[in-house]
């Protein structure tokens, strides 16, 4: 029982970490960003290549993952995405899904269709005893990082000037612009940061998910699920949603393996029926 809950929380933490960037770009900025996985993949590849070919340690890989996600995200924002903020959501969907396919082709071209190798650093390998159960160090690490990230984001968004500026710009761009906020630059920075988080999550996921060119398509449902169930525009919502979905999925697979991975969708359906606008609804949301 203990191990099932722990594994569920760890899987949830991973779901949160790879989706939290989407809570920023889609949840906060109201931009329908189906290309989230492409930025996560950029981070994953940066980390994997650095670690495999240049022997970089895991923390360096994580930092590189963040950077790679952020840089690709920033470039995309500057050249394309800023033109689409005010477009119809359908245009945003079409553009970002196109971006997913383009990223799959690009990565296949440069790195081939095969999956990337990942060797866990020795300090994250194996198990450690915690409250009488053997738990995997890597999974424990995921939970810790998840908690740090959620705390940092909450602080950043609710307690800093930058966070206040983002909230203001998202709620009413014209008024924000009028009060002297450079909305263009702010959105560039926010989108870049969101994509950086995606890259970071992508690099962190190497120990559990496999990295090959179809990564952005393969895990898209999971990214979207966490943000939908959690509620757009918040950080606590996706965090709770990720943990719930994670524990539900793992418990379902352990206790009733015949139902397979289907349970996770039932869980999502139930949660959305109960709270159609997400677990945590943003104050003043329309």
């Amino acid at each position, binding site marked *: 029982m203990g*191990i*099932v809950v722990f*594994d569920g929380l760890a*899987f949830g933490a991973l779901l949160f970490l790879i989706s939290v960037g989407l809570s920023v770009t889609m949840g906060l900025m109201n931009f329908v960003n189906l290309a989230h996985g492409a930025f996560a993949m950029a981070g994953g590849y940066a980390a994997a290549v650095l670690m495999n070919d240049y022997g970089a340690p895991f923390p360096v890989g994580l930092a590189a993952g963040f950077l790679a996600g952020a840089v690709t995200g920033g470039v995309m924002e500057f050249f394309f995405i800023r033109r689409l903020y005010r477009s119809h959501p359908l245009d945003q969907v079409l553009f970002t899904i196109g971006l997913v396919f383009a990223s799959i082709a690009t990565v*296949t071209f440069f790195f*081939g*269709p*095969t*999956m*990337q*190798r990942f*060797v866990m650093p020795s300090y994250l390998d194996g*198990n450690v005893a915690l409250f009488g159960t*053997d738990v*995997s160090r*890597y999974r424990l690490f995921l939970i810790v990082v998840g908690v740090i990230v959620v705390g940092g984001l909450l602080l950043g968004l609710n307690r800093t000037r930058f966070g206040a500026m983002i909230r203001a710009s998202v709620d009413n761009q014209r008024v924000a612009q009028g009060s002297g906020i450079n909305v263009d630059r702010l959105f560039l920075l926010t989108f870049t940061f969101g994509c950086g988080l995606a890259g970071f999550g992508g690099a962190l996921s190497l*120990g*559990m*998910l*496999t990295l*090959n*060119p*179809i990564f952005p398509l*393969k*895990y898209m449902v*999971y990214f979207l699920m966490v943000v939908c169930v959690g509620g757009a525009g918040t950080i606590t919502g996706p965090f709770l949603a990720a943990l719930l979905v994670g524990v539900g*999925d*793992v*418990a379902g*697979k*352990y206790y009733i*393996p*015949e139902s*397979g*991975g*289907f349970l996770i969708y039932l869980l999502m359906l139930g949660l959305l029926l109960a709270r159609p606008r997400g677990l945590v609804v943003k104050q003043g949301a329309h």
Partner: protein
Amino acid sequence: MSRLAATLLATAIFAGSAAAAEPLKLGFVAPMSGAQAEYGLQMMNGMKTYMAQHGDSVADRPIEIIVKDSGGPNPDVAKRLTQELIVRDKVDFLVGYGFSPNAFAAAPLATESETPLIIFNAASSTIPLKSPYIARVSMTLAQHAYGIAKWANEQDIQKVYTLYADYAPGQDANKQFKKIFTAEGGEIVGEIGVPLSSPDFGPYMQRIKDAQPDAVFMWFPSGELANTMLKSYRERGLEEAGIRALGTSDLVDDHSLDSMGEDAVGLITSAHYSAAHDSELNKAFVETYAEIDPDTRPNFMAVAAYDGLAAIYKVTEDLGGDVSNGEKVMELLTGMTFESPRGPIEISSEDRDIVQNIYIRETKDTGEGLYNIEFQTMPMVVDQGKE
């Protein structure tokens, strides 16, 4: 007038070149893009390897390979592409077919047009029964399952939990393993079919660990799923708990072995081919392959494509280059035996299916990367999955 002249000229040139060397057209249907693009890559490299060693023409006919990308398991697409190859390109042979559903979809077309179809991978047992124009040079899942189940019996492994990807080939492999393993007194204590989309296999492994069987039989298609599976097996410490891992080669396919790393070392699997197979022919095969594609290592699909071309070259030579009569071609293919880089093989005279050695191997770090080292041979195994 000038138009008429041009037409005449074109006709003359066409007729002239046709008389000189009509190419031998191979219609190659395989996944060339998407998640399974490596299948197509391996087969293409395998064919190129054969051509590099034996020349790119046979009986004065230059080989022309017409590539059609079927993507993943898409029977409709495979059927349409096969039709195009037969009707528009008028190919002499159909080759490739990575997935069983694709092969099944193409079977009636091969029968109708009397075009010989050589299977390079698709491994469902019944495929050759679907058309008298199909011959298989790859393998069947039942052959692999036979090898590892027999070996488990010999090792006195009694209780086995099975875990497999929940789609046709996984169900097949599971069924065959169960049939052979229980026939000699083994017991299956549990079975889990895992959906293909599952990203986290930890909970399944935990469940198996808690059930404490002697071994777990795993079947997953080669590539990422097999990799993820094995990662969980290691992470959960099943080996430390005394639960051995049994599998077929899909788990430790040569193509993905290097990216699996330490996780694969020590695994016992059964298969018909390993890049480390100890024979002169295989050494030459691996060397030529490396010249063609230094970035990958040949796996069982490359070897099947290589043997497929060997069979086609033989038939074409025997018929003096005229392969227009499909029935004659199939007559020659049936019962054909020759030496492959994997060892001796035979295209069965019973059902045009492959008969070959099945090897039991252990994955080892040889110092030059991970390889599956064969240590036991089950000679000339016939597919037993047709029932």
